[in-house]
């Protein structure tokens, strides 16, 4: 039979480091085909080859039965291939209609004048097709993440795309938005579109996909029919070993109080109180925009305090700058590695060294031997998969970048570590490693504030859970008393719950 997409024996190396060693992928029309694999397995590279960003070193690509050399994004588009990136490529200040037809406005130009009314009318039709009910003249800035995504899908469809690649499309979506997206995907399927779906959320794969191709270490290890397989089998193929427990939480005995915050007020926070004990994981839950990250920012000295007291290890401290926070033993693994965590152009070593430069210097001179040793130690301990300490951070996979961010904070030997969505966009294997690391840290007596939107993770990994709603804490749960419904009730402001008995 002819496939919509057929890739055979794809190989690709960067700077002599093989990323794809031998990959086969075959997707039929009208199928949702998942691409599953750990970070660094080569999924993104494969998709960039299919969408014309990279040329493979060897291998064949056949689209609808025709062998092709996809040497540019333009070629890919002409062949009906479109990719919806995880970081959406919309221009916030342009209108929905302008974004939809960006670069193709000429279709509505006559005598040099853009006929905007007709452009908007065309946009309206495209938006209807994806079930998005917004005015085409609204700037994209005002749309939610899910709506922006639908704009991107509409854009792809308006280019007659019949092979659609979606990279982590639900990473930033709410449950309702996810449902809407799935409805959309099903209707695409009926129209005969081939959808290649990349996600780390295993439950989703079972819900929406027909077949799964699993990749590991740059190879495709097999293609499975979703109805004839189960999660454990897939995970085993993905990590190359059986995985017993997704959340390996170890019980710890909380010790003395390491961080006590009271009446924390900023522009976004209305008097937050929290305590973290030695060896304790305090989960911070809530919906997007509830003020969870703002709590971290206020504690770290990033946002100016209107009021509030912070005590570290029983002593009141003043924190006006992250440097103060660092000095008092606080560390902050940020949500957005690329924007806030890493120097992408610089090496693994330089990134790991950054917060602790002052500790390996004599009169300002950097002690390079110590620095190299430090970097190698963290690479080994955290199992950072890089080709050496001199590899630029930009070329690492997401999970490994996250480990570098972890490493640089571990090197500061923190008393308290704030983790903001530490497993977002990270695959199952790397997730388990991060959980193990949390266990290791708490065993050493480090207190952890875990900010997470992943409820199962929050429930499984926290000793206590604080739930926020509109800038204040609306619920405090002990590990045993928490469940998803109760947390959601507090997160949506329908219920308030004070701390139970200690």
């Amino acid at each position: 039979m002819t496939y919509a997409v057929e890739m055979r024996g794809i190989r690709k190396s960067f700077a002599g480091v093989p990323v794809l060693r031998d990959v086969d992928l075959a997707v039929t029309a009208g199928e949702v085909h998942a691409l599953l694999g750990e970070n660094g397995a080569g999924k993104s590279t494969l998709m960039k080859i299919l969408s014309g960003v990279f040329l493979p070193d060897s291998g064949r690509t056949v689209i609808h039965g025709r062998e092709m050399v996809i040497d540019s994004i333009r070629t890919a588009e002409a062949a009906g291939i479109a990719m919806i990136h995880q970081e959406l490529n919309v221009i916030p200040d342009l209108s929905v209609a302008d974004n939809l037809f960006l670069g193709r406005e000429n279709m509505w130009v006559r005598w040099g004048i853009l006929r905007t009314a007709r452009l908007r009318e065309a946009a309206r039709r495209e938006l209807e097709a994806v079930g998005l009910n917004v005015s085409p003249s609204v700037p994209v800035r005002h749309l939610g993440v899910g709506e922006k995504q639908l704009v991107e899908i509409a854009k792809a469809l308006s280019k007659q795309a019949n092979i659609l690649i979606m990279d982590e499309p639900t990473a930033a979506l709410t449950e309702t938005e996810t449902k809407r997206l799935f409805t959309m995907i099903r209707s695409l399927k009926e129209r005969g579109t081939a959808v290649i779906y990349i996600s780390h959320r295993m439950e989703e794969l079972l819900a929406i996909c027909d077949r799964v191709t699993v990749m590991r270490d740059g190879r495709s290890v097999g293609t499975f029919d979703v109805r004839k397989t189960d999660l454990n089998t897939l995970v085993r193929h993905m990590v190359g070993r059986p995985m017993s427990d997704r959340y390996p939480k170890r019980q710890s005995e909380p010790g003395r109080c390491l961080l006590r915050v009271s009446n924390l007020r900023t522009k976004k926070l209305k008097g937050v109180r929290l305590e973290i004990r030695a060896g304790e994981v305090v989960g911070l839950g809530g919906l997007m925009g509830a003020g969870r990250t703002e709590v971290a920012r206020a504690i770290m000295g990033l946002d100016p305090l209107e009021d509030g007291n912070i005590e570290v290890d029983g002593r009141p401290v003043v924190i006006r700058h992250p440097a103060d926070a660092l000095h008092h033993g606080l560390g902050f693994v940020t949500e957005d590695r690329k924007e806030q965590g890493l120097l992408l152009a610089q090496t693994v070593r330089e990134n790991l060294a950054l917060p602790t430069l002052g500790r390996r210097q004599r009169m300002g001179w950097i002690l390079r031997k110590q620095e190299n040793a430090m970097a190698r130690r963290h690479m080994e301990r955290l199992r950072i998969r890089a080709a050496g300490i001199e590899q630029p951070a930009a070329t690492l996979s997401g999970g490994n970048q996250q480990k570098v961010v972890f490493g640089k904070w571990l090197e500061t030997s923190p008393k308290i570590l704030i983790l903001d969505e530490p497993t977002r966009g990270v695959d199952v294997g790397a997730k388990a490693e991060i959980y193990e690391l949390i266990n290791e840290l708490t065993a050493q007596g480090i207190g952890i504030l875990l900010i997470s939107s992943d409820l199962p993770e929050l429930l499984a990994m926290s000793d206590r859970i604080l739930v926020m709603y509109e800038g204040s804490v609306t619920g405090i749960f002990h590990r045993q008393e928490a469940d998803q419904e109760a947390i959601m009730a507090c997160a949506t402001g329908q219920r308030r719950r004070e701390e139970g008995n200690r």
Partner: protein
Amino acid sequence: MNSSKAGESFEKTAASRWWKRIHLGPLLGLLLIAAVLSLTSDRFLTASNLMNVARQVSINALLAVGATFVILTGGIDLSVGSVLALAGALAAGWMSGGFSPAAAVAGALLVGLGAGFANGALVAYGRLAPFIATLGTMTLYRGLTLIYTGGRPISSMPDSFYALGGGYLGPVPTPVWMMAVVFAAGWLMLNRMTPGRRILAIGGNEEAAMLSGIRTDRYKLLVYGISGGLSALAGVVLTSRLHSAQPTAGTGYELDAIAAVVLGGTSLSGGRGSLWGTLVGAFIIGVIDNGLNLLNVSSFYQQAVKGAVILAAVLMDRRR
């Protein structure tokens, strides 16, 4: 796993990458221009001419070192030419007023440092875009210079002062020595010391740098201070060499300094670049100026040729 093997090779490439770090591209460009000139003019490749080129380059090179630091943080300093004029005028004025050359030079350097810190404060604490901040002070400092001099050159200075810009130490002109020392010190600071690493971090990702506990404001202050101080040094050297402080001295010099930095491969968005490249860049500009003079090209054509060569060089560098 085979990653340990790959690891070794990556570290090896890093160790043997010294030739990459010295930026072969701009250097080859410089050698190419020099080769062409030595074939077309028999006066180019003489010891006295090369020393002359080095002396001329030294002024721009001093400015370009400061510009490199500023640009590495993602900033820009347009005020260097005005600071140069202000420092030169103050030094000359103080000497003609009876101060010793040493005191006058020290005073001028302090004023330059202060002018630089003022730029840094506007950027770091006033939260102004560097372009705007230094565009303002460029005009402000030029105005102060014109007020101080009344628009007239100052030229009565003690003879001993002329050695600074016109003298020799051994066979090499004094300003060339200064350039060498400043480059060596700058290189060490950038590549071997903590402030350099932090400056690169700020240019690479300011948010990440601040979150890593780097007091980014202080380092911004520092780089603009360095730029101001070196501009003042260049101003004193120029005044000494010309035996006169011109209130309009250094007009447009900021562009030559920025051109040298860009020719040297430093990214204008910050975070990536090298002082070695800047030195080569400064020499490319100097050699072009000198060569066009030797070939008796009219000064109108010189400008056009220089601009075209700069664009060609940067374009070629992008290609590789």
